């Protein structure tokens, strides 16, 4: 397989995505779930740049999107971390299984 082909990029990105989803579903630690979410976002970013390079070489639309994603991820981490912090202060834990106050 040519290391510079689109296929390899997409494979890596889907591996990242799968890892992220796996972590999101399996980890009980909220911080770890947040990190897994970052992986998912990064796989999307990688998709964007790879497809930009191979399909639209003379435009930079994908890169613009990646910038947006990075900014969005930063904002999201801010909010998520503050929520987790608040949760930790309240519950003395970051285990997601304890976050079920809304269950009827």
């Amino acid at each position, binding site marked *: 397989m040519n290391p510079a082909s689109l296929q390899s990029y997409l494979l890596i990105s889907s591996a990242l995505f799968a890892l992220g*989803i796996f972590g*999101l*579903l*399996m980890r*009980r630690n909220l911080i770890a*779930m947040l990190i897994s979410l970052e992986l998912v976002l990064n796989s999307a970013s990688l998709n964007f740049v790879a497809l930009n390079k191979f399909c639209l070489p003379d435009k930079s639309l994908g890169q613009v999107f990646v910038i947006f994603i990075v900014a969005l991820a930063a904002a999201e981490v801010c909010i998520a971390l503050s929520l987790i912090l608040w949760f930790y202060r309240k519950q003395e834990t970051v285990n*997601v*299984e304890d*976050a*079920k106050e*809304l*269950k*009827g």
Partner: protein
Amino acid sequence: MELNLLWVIQLAPLAAFLLVQFLPKGAKKTAPVFAILLALAAACASIKLFSLHADGSSLPAQYLHPWLSVSDQTLWPFVAIKDYALSVGFLVDRLNLLMITVVTTITFFVQLFSFYYMAEDESRARYFAFLSFFAFSMTGLVLSSNLLQTFLFWELVGLASYMLIGFWYQKPSASTAARKAFVINRLADLGFYLGILLLFILFGSVDYLNLKTEALTAALPQGTLTALGLLVFMGVMGKSAQFPFHVWLPDAMEGPTPVSALIHSATMVAAGVFLLSRAFGLFSASITTLTFILIIGTLTACVGAMLATVQRDIKRILAYSTMSQLGLMVMAIGAGSAVAGMFHLATHAYFKSLLFLTAGAFIHRFHTNDIWEIGTAGGKKERLALAALALGLFSLSGIFPFAGFFSKDMILETLHEHGGLFYYAALFVSFLTAYYSFRLLFIITRSKVSASHHEDTHTHHGSALLDLCRALPLISLAAISVVVGLTGTSVFDFKLLHWLGGEQTHLNLEILTTTTLLILAAGSLAFWKFSDPEAAEKRLRENKSPLHLALERKLFIDDAYDFLVKKVGLGIAALLDRFDRAFINGVLVNGTSYFILNIGRWLSRVQSGLLQDYLAWVMTAGVAVIFWAAHLASKGLS
């Protein structure tokens, strides 16, 4: 002129009803005056109307007013599209001229007698109001020009009958009897109403003048005609107390006696017979219907006469007698002679209301319905009532030359010509009729008057007016009943039967001798058994034959109804109740709810409260959507 008379006949009783209803409390005492005067007005108007048409000219006359017209094409999908029109109005012909005269005159005399009979009753304003209301409904019934209009008034007389049977509603027996009469009549009227509806839909008209046998047989198949006739006859069976719907009539005697005289012997129960001859074209269109009518009439006549032979209550004797005489009239019509039926209706109306009024006189005087008690209390001292009673009973048993003789012989002759066993059944009925008539007469006249009884009957011969109100109806009805019988013969210039479209009665020697012998035999049998009423009563108390017991149990017909309602009806109801509880409620209603509840319980486990479970669901759903979209896309491509 004629229309004005008709309006007077129709509206005078209604006016009496309204006047009495809206009288101020203080003036309620005057209620009988209005009722009696307006009844007199109606009676005079109908006699005048009758005399206008005595020569038979310009009949039948109709005064119609259009009421409803239906040209809906989707009214009934299976028959040809027709325009239907209904009209209301008066129809005057010989039949209802006779009937209206009978009804209004008897109403007047009964109202007059009621003034005496109800003199001490607290709520006699209500009584006279209801009686007038009845008279209004009855005249409406008689004067109607079509079946539907008749049906409306038919229901109104049923209502009036209900209210008057239950007049003393404080008595449980009276209110029960009223309810019984009402329910049985409604049951029968269901058939009547269905018959009218079907006739209207299939034939397109319910006007009496259009109900001709030829037109009907041309328009409808024979089976339909039979069904229609039987449905309409069902209403007749209810109203005219025909077997097996007769059970309400004896119980209806719980009402005041003048009511029994007017409604339950002379007019309302005869309305069924009147309807039979009114819509005779409908019934005679099918031989099956006529035969059925004949059979039902025979059963009614026999059962009624048999039951009358064992009663102790004077009103019940008369009630069963009414039933059997109605059966005779129905037989006559079933045998094809509407004229004979109507003639007997007219004579019977007069002499039976006379009989009931004499019964009322006895009951009012001695405060008992039991004939033995009336006898020992001094029944034979009441000269006038006794004479009237004897005349009525002679008439009832058909002794020459009293009214019943002519009309009953005419029926016998009709049945004789018709052939079959019906003639012998009618002879049997005549025999029984004479037997119970003489039984009644002998028990009242031959009882020894016990002194103690005689003293404690209270005397309230206060005013001469009351005495007049008691005597006048008795004398007049007695006289009229004799005269009406004679109009059927060739004695007078006016020949009633000829006028009605039949032949005058003539002496048929064979039947005359047969009936006379039968009456003699019945009279001697009654004399042999009841010439000494005290001994007869003692004998009855000691041992009763099985037949006698069966007759006292009303031939188990009431028991059969009891069984039908309590065992069969309630059994079915219990089964349905089980079904309802177990299946409808248990399986369908509760089952559905439990099913939903359990699904909900099961599904609610999905809501674990764990964020990651929800995430997993979302993703599964997302993947499913993607696959589905891909599937659609691949289908679109191919």
